[in-house]
């Protein structure tokens, strides 16, 4: 690359720039080209199917738009958001969603950790246990929801009978679990816990397996009790695993839909945010309002994600340097 002596400064600097570009070796240039060739298709597919809905939902959320009456579509600014945020139904659904998220998260963390600890140390039915624990993960959520629904129904179920038997007849076998908010929520949470604890304990097990045995032994020699060893040595060493498990589960739980949809269909004040979005858009065909609700749900999830990531200082792109 030769530059003529009379070129102006601008030309020269652009020449230098192109020289710098040309200065990339074949390897670097090839790498860049290949990088986009390989990653491009996946990226474009993701963009097409998701950024469009996000943008479209944002756009539609500013309209009063009913699918059954498209002609009456009207731009209403933030009216949908104002309506939603001042609607007690919306806040009730948010409260229920938050309740389910928090309860399942806490129970699953304790259960998951206990199961992970047993799986980590167990010798005898080691393989069987690890396989059996994984089974609920493979069950379709809808199926698990039906299973729990039928188990607790007083006419088809067995649970009331078992409780009746175990409490020596004190428990009424015709008790209707799906008759009230709290009892319904109990079953929803139980079924959710049953279905997703395996995932939690697997993540925690992976974390446990990474904890250096000798560290625990050193603590034991130093005179730490079992509980002290867990709290002071084991848990801190598997902090990353705990954080990741909590973040993933929290985000997933906050979007809960299938379970309450099958079990109660939102009756007895068990509507979750996801269900509210579904009802508004699909059953009521209120596209504008539904989009606003969807955007609000997305914002909540982003806030939770950002909050947890900041709280735990997790690098979610972990390992990708």
């Amino acid at each position: 690359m030769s530059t003529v002596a009379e070129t102006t400064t601008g030309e020269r600097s652009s020449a230098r720039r192109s020289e710098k570009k040309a200065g990339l070796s074949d390897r670097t240039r090839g790498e860049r080209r290949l990088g986009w060739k390989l990653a491009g298709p996946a990226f474009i597919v993701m963009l097409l199917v998701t950024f469009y809905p996000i943008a479209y939902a944002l756009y539609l959320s500013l309209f009063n738009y009913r699918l059954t009456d498209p002609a009456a579509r009207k731009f209403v600014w933030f009216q949908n958001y104002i309506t939603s945020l001042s609607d007690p139904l919306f806040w009730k659904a948010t409260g229920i969603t938050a309740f389910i998220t928090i309860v399942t998260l806490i129970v699953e963390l304790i259960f998951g950790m206990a199961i992970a600890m047993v799986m980590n140390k167990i010798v005898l039915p080691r393989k069987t246990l690890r396989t059996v624990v994984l089974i609920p993960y493979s069950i379709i959520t809808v199926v698990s929801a039906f299973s729990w629904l039928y188990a607790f129904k007083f006419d088809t179920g067995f649970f009331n009978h078992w409780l009746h038997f175990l409490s020596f007849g004190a428990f009424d076998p015709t008790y209707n679990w799906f008759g009230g908010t709290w009892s319904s929520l109990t079953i929803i949470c139980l079924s959710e816990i049953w279905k997703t604890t395996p995932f939690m304990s697997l993540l925690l097990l992976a974390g446990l397996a990474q904890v250096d045995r000798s560290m625990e032994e050193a603590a034991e020699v130093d005179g730490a009790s079992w509980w002290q060893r867990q709290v002071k040595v084991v848990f801190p060493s598997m902090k990353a695993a705990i954080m990741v498990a909590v973040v993933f589960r929290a985000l997933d739980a906050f979007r809960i839909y299938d379970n309450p949809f099958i079990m109660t269909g939102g009756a007895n004040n068990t509507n979750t945010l996801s269900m509210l979005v579904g009802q508004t858009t699909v059953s009521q065909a209120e596209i504008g309002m539904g989009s606003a609700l969807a955007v609000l749900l997305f914002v909540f999830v982003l806030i939770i994600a950002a909050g947890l990531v900041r709280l735990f200082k997790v690098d979610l792109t972990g390992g990708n340097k």
Partner: protein
Amino acid sequence: MSSIELKNIVKKYGDGFPAVNDVSLNIADGEFMILVGPSGCGKSTLLRMVVGLEDITSGELDINGKRVNDLAPRDRNLAMVFQNYALYPHLTVFENIAFPLRLAKGKHSDNEIKEKVNTAADMLELREHLERKPANLSGGQRQRVAMGRAIVREADAFLFDEPLSNLDAKLRGQMRTEIARMQRRLGVTTLYVTHDQTEAMTLGDRVAVLKKGILQQCASPRELYEQPINLFVAGFIGSPPMNFLPARVEGNTLKMPIADVELTGELAEKVKGKNAVIVGLRPEHIKDASLGDNISHGVPFKAVVDVTEWLGNEQYAYIPFDSDPSLQGTLEELDRDLDGEGMRTQMVVNLDSRSRVREGQEADLVFDPSFMHVFDPESGDCLTRDDDRAAEIARDNEEQRKAALERAKSRESNAASQSAEPRQAS
């Protein structure tokens, strides 16, 4: 025939720090060149730039006189042995060695590939392992497979990136001679990176010593040992390392912690005007006077021995001394540059195994001042370096290298004709 020429090679990373700074090297056809230096000196980066795995920030890299800066690794026709061998775990030993041949589609027939792989396997004694997977091989065998992959490529040059560092001490010694034998036999230009100065000294036709990305000296092992250009090279080459003693200049006398030395002639001129210098003394140049070895003009001195290590064929004695505060900084920095631990200042003496010197004893020692290296503490330059002598060593070394290459070639052709004859006869 292939030569590699590095012209003012610079490597800068994102932060602008030059990992390799203005290195120029000329590797002749068939030469075994070593890149050596402490960790972080840029030797691996330099090697990776030659093979094309790192971009060259500025400077020119020529292979056989052709600029290859912008060529992808596969177009440079070089073969490389990696530190952890980088064997493909899903392929058998045979397929691992055949891999480069299979990549050049249509160039080699199946029979050709088989023949080439078998020849290489014979040379490396891998014949019975060809159908095994790398995971089932020992460290030394893996190492040989990696070399086999390089051999079949018939590359212009071999590049080694610390190939022996994952082996245990005994195997390392064996593989070292194996590599040397193979290089001579094939007469292939070789660039070899190591941090181990023993490997550097035993394998290299020439050794390039790097420090913080800057080339210090590139010369034959003997020249590096006898005529080091500066403090760093002197301290890096040799095991146990050269002792560095602070010395005050008083007129024509060098006052060292252990003894005083009268200077004459040229050296006296050179140190004139300096307050202090650093004196380098190799451990083997200090002798036990009580054994009666006759050293003419030897400087005798007495010193209390702190620790001794008796190894059977030789004996090390450690003698602590007080450092000169004015030179302490220079010596500490040198120690850091050499990956030292900043331990106490002590002198190592390599004594004859007959010596009866023991811990805590005051020993009668003697050294020949003509073996002394004197360094300028500011620049680190060696004041005692004899350029004429160095040139002589270099000439001698080059002749010997060519002669060795010739001998290897004639031996090879002899062997080939001998093995060909009976086949024709039968």
